[in-house]
């Protein structure tokens, strides 16, 4: 039985909710703060994940790479004005070891374009690894596995 004490469960829920919030509220600069310095964040699809193909749509193995992605979105890349709305499920705890644990959480993300078009842009699951550092939970790893193998137009904002 994978058990996490109630305090940590609440902290996990808050952390995941805050992660979504900073992206949805256009506070992208805060997004890398959810990760440890050496971390792994990648976005892939269920088909690639199942087949063990590790090339990702987004790949970062340092907080610096995450910051670079934010800077590119702010200053370099061209994409039409859009915002996300994340809705998350409850985290399933997969494994607990000391001050680290792994979890899997469903997500649905709607994308709202400047035109008003609102679509269910992505659904999938976060396969996470966390470490408790002081009283904060930091991601050492987040693998975003999108259920669909198709992205509509482009993927600009992180999931």
């Amino acid at each position, binding site marked *: 039985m994978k058990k996490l004490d109630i305090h940590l469960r609440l902290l996990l829920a808050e952390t995941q909710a805050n992660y979504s919030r900073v992206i949805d509220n256009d506070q992208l600069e805060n997004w890398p703060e959810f990760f440890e310095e050496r971390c792994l964040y990648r*976005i*892939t*699809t269920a*088909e*690639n994940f199942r087949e063990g*193909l*590790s*090339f*990702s*749509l*987004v*790949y*970062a*193995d*340092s907080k*610096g*790479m995450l*910051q*670079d*992605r934010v*800077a*590119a979105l702010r*200053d*370099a*890349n*061209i*994409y*039409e004005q859009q915002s996300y709305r994340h809705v998350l499920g409850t985290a399933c705890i997969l494994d607990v070891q000391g001050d680290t644990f792994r979890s899997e959480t469903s997500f649905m993300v709607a994308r709202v374009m400047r035109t008003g078009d609102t679509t269910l842009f992505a659904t999938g699951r976060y396969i996470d690894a966390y470490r408790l550092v002081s009283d904060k939970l930091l991601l050492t790893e987040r693998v975003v596995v999108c259920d669909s*193998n*198709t*992205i*509509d*137009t*482009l*993927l*600009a904002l992180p999931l």
Partner: protein
Amino acid sequence: MNETVGVIDPPSHWPSGKISGVPYWVFQREDVYAREQKQLFRGNCWNFLCLDSEITTIGDYVATHVGDTPVLVIRGRDGEIYAFENRCAHRGALLALKNRGQMKDITCVYHGWSYSFEGDLVGIAFKDGINGKGGMPQDFCMNGHGPKKLRVTTLHGLVFGSFSNDVPDIEEYLGKKVVPYVGRIMGKKTPVILGRFSQTLPNNWKHYIENTKDSYHASILHLFFNTFEINRMSQRGEIIVNDWGGAHVSISGTSGNGDVKAAYKTEQLRADSNFGLKDPSMLKGMDEFGDGINIQVLSLFPGFALSQIQNVIHLRQILPRGPESMQLNWTILGFDEDTPEQRLMRMRQGNMVGAAGFVSMEDGCIGGFVQRGTAGSSDVDSLIEMGGREADSSESRVTESAIRGFWKAYRREMAL
């Protein structure tokens, strides 16, 4: 082809032979789309199907599309690759229901009609009825009733198919100046698939095709490219367009050109900026093919590209989905010979391409901007005159020559 292809209703004016501008109705109309399916995708063209390494064992298959037509590509019992319409001869159901897999036999789920791996109809359930009653008519012959077969060819592990028996061999189709660039990437080491991704784009497929042949936009739209000196217009490079316009290759390589920043400043382009990376390890690369070329885009008419962006090797299959939509299928490649460090290098550089690519992201939305920008302007022509008005090869990449090449091939094959 003797039959007429039909008349496109006016307004449909496009000055004869003009390739330096395209009227926007070409990207908007259903009748043009229908003609493309017939003349191009089912015509004298080669269409990318898969890699031969995806179907190594007898019965291995890939289900893909040639234009709108679903196609089954399978490794036959004699070790050859066969391709035919993914359609039962009976009443039209799909034969393969997954994207890829292994078949012991090809049997339609609907009524059990069965096919050889070469695409011949070989079995009909209850063909002779039961107890002398029912069954197919006496004069029915299974020969000649099967899904249409494609001619299949393989070039450096890339499998192409055509519905035409008249299309030249693929080496001639590409042209002798372009062909070596396929082998440059695919011919020396053993390709392996690192990932497969798909995008649905809200634009006519030809807007994306133009983009793949457009060396002019690369360092302007894609700020990322330029600032990190992966691609600047002033790097050495060239564009080769084959004689009929149906294939091109654009190459560029690193050089120590001091006047680079000045050229961009004069033009007051967005491409001159002080954007700096916190973790530049992402861009660490190697001169993988030993010739200093770090960008290659090779395209083949109508809808295939083989590209190298530093060390991200990828295939793109462009599939039309009506006049205002398309599907873009990416296959990312590495090589069996990669060391773990080289493989990681490709993973990190992968941030540049695909739907979220620092470079490719813009290519995803720009087609839609064009489709929307040209709504209501069916009779207006685009301007494709950078570098001249012909589809010649060029030592400069400040040219739209390869785009004009596409239109030259298009007008010829479409009889438009």
